[in-house]
């Protein structure tokens, strides 16, 4: 146990920091991963990849670095420190890529993995539907095999990045007669195909991060099925396992920024802050606990190949903490809080999505109860 950088990690951090300083375009500094600047972001992501800073934990045979998860953590810290955007292909790197590595054919691996690293392919996720949110097994988007081609009809929703995506990991119903969990097929869909229409969804913040995807007679070659026909459920579980394994660390970075902001705000409103000292400290403590727990989980992942059970707690606790932090900030603002300050008002509204997206808190509690704590199924 040592929370300091090892010699290898310190060297990696040093090179990375110098590289970012030399290569980050001024126009991208402090912009976050805003997709309005798609081309500069793609270029930045490709440059990161060319320099060897993308896919640090991916196996070398797939173009990755074959390194430990500590390096990924250092990458996120250094990007945050320099106010530099992350790689634009979050879903490709964290979800599609790892799932293709596990279930993909050689042709699929060689077609997609390198372009994901190089930001030549941006991916989105087509899992949720209007009638299938937490209950993923009841998706209705229909895929029918005609000759060597699947024809897909249906609607997906809450799909981040769909408006800029080149590819989609899509869960479809290929056999409505099959027993539950057995009639699903997971496929890789070219978003530029005929019949794919993306419509932005406006959120309570007023912006449109998410999209609806409408699929009408979309033709998908049979060769684009990931895993076996009818075994889409198992493939989807691989995707979600990877999402949860590495999501925690990225999330704590977002909370870190908000806690920093909360402390600054408390300094500007000492009267109000004095009444809320305990609550402010509680959220700072929660942030440290989440970061440290992410380290612990990544350490277990490196040691055993499986994320530890503690990782599943992170998203749940993070979402509730972020909501409390944004609320505390608004208490500190007092009456000024009726005027949109351009930051906390947005953060407070955006944080309401945190307990819904990537698994609602209710579903996450069920998952922890059943899969981590071994309690009987609640349904």
């Amino acid at each position: 146990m040592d929370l300091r950088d090892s010699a290898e990690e310190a060297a990696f951090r040093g090179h990375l920091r110098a590289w970012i300083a030399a290569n980050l375009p001024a126009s991208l500094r402090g912009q976050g991963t805003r997709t309005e600047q798609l081309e500069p972001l793609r270029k930045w992501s490709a440059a990161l990849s060319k320099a060897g800073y993308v896919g640090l934990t991916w196996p070398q045979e797939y173009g990755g670095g074959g390194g430990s998860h500590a390096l990924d953590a250092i990458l996120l810290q250094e990007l945050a420190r320099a106010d530099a955007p992350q790689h634009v292909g979050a879903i490709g790197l964290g979800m599609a890529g790892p799932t293709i590595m596990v279930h993909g054919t050689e042709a699929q691996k060689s077609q997609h993995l390198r372009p994901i690293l190089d930001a030549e392919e941006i991916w989105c996720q087509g899992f949720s539907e209007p009638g299938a949110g937490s209950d993923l097994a009841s998706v209705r988007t229909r895929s029918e095999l005609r000759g060597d081609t699947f024809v897909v009809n249906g609607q997906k929703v809450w799909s981040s990045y769909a408006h800029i995506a080149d590819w989609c990991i899509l869960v479809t119903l290929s056999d409505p007669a099959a027993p539950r969990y057995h009639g699903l097929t997971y496929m890789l869909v070219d978003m530029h195909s005929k019949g794919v229409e993306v419509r932005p969804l406006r959120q309570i913040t007023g912006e449109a991060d998410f999209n609806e995807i409408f699929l009408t007679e979309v033709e998908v070659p049979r060769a684009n099925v990931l895993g076996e026909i009818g075994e889409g459920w198992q493939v989807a579980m691989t995707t979600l396992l990877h999402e949860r394994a590495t999501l925690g660390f990225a999330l704590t970075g977002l909370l870190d920024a908000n806690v920093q902001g909360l402390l600054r705000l408390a300094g500007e409103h000492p009267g109000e802050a004095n009444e809320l000292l305990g609550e402010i400290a509680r959220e700072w403590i929660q942030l440290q606990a989440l970061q440290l727990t992410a380290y612990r989980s990544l350490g277990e992942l490196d040691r055993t190949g499986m994320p530890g059970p503690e990782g599943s707690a992170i998203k749940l606790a993070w979402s509730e903490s972020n909501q409390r932090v944004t609320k505390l900030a608004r208490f500190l603002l007092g009456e000024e809080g009726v005027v949109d300050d351009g930051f906390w008002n947005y953060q407070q509204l955006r944080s309401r999505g945190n307990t819904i997206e990537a698994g609602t808190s209710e579903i996450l509690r069920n998952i922890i109860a059943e899969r981590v704590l071994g309690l009987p199924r609640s349904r």
Partner: protein
Amino acid sequence: MDFTFSSEQRELREQARSFLEAHFPPSRVAQLAESEAGWDPDIWPELAQLGWLGVSVPEDLGGAGLTFIEEAILIEEFGRSLFPGPYLSTIGFARPALSGNQLAQVAAGSRRWSACLGESNLVPDLAFVDQVVLLRGDQLLAVAPEGRPATSIDSTRRMVALSSSQGEVLASGPPAQELAQAMRLRLATALALEAVGVAQRVLEWGLEHVRTREQFGRPIGSYQAVSHPLVDTFVEVELARSLAYWAAWCISVDDPQLGLAAAAAKSAAAEAAVHACERVIQVHGGMGFTWESPLHRYYKRALWIEHFGGSPGQHRRRLASQLLAGGGSTAESQPAHRGG
């Protein structure tokens, strides 16, 4: 960066757990808690023989020359079994004030200690020890363990109001204040580790119960009103565990963030343990409310931990003032050294 235990450390934990489960099952702890003596002094030479009393004592003084990380593992396991005895007071509290021959005696099992830093005159396990480290003015003294017994809320951790005030001077002036501060932070960290052990054991009992207890024809753990509070306890315990290990690591390498880490760990772990006990008593229904169940002893230890060495609210307010005084700068908020 590696926040996992080594294989030797994991073995130490397993060894401690099986030793304590064999020697201090709940029935034995109940018996000791209700006995006049309050503990079994014959166990102490065994602990010395296992090497557990000299873990961080240098090898030339008869110890193992290891770090606080190994002691942290033992403290957590002692907490898990509700061990009645002066391990916490000696290793988790008085230890920083001791040196040379005193450490050799601790490692050999021939001297036990407790301490009093003057928040109150209440001393844990005073009746089980040979000497007490006392902060008096700007001096640290080694005084005789004399005083008036008080009724502790936790009968596995007895309290005495110290009356002695004279003894050998261990340190004076700024060094005494520094040692006292090191003792405070070590105590907060050790109590956080104990709390994690307490909470984990109680959570396991809760899970076992709701998996097997049936009502309305189903195990009660299948009802979300029962399972979700246990999930919240699992989450709180895992987060508190991370903080407790962080503070333990800070002690082991003398990291300057120990002050923040210990306050964070103590407040979060004490509350996690109290919540764990309250939720698990609740899911046990009437049985959880009986004297016969071991749960009340764990609850009392959790409450004891919550109050001794600074309440969670005190730790949080102090921590917030520190963070705000530091302007909440990024460096201040980083949980660990991150390579500059």
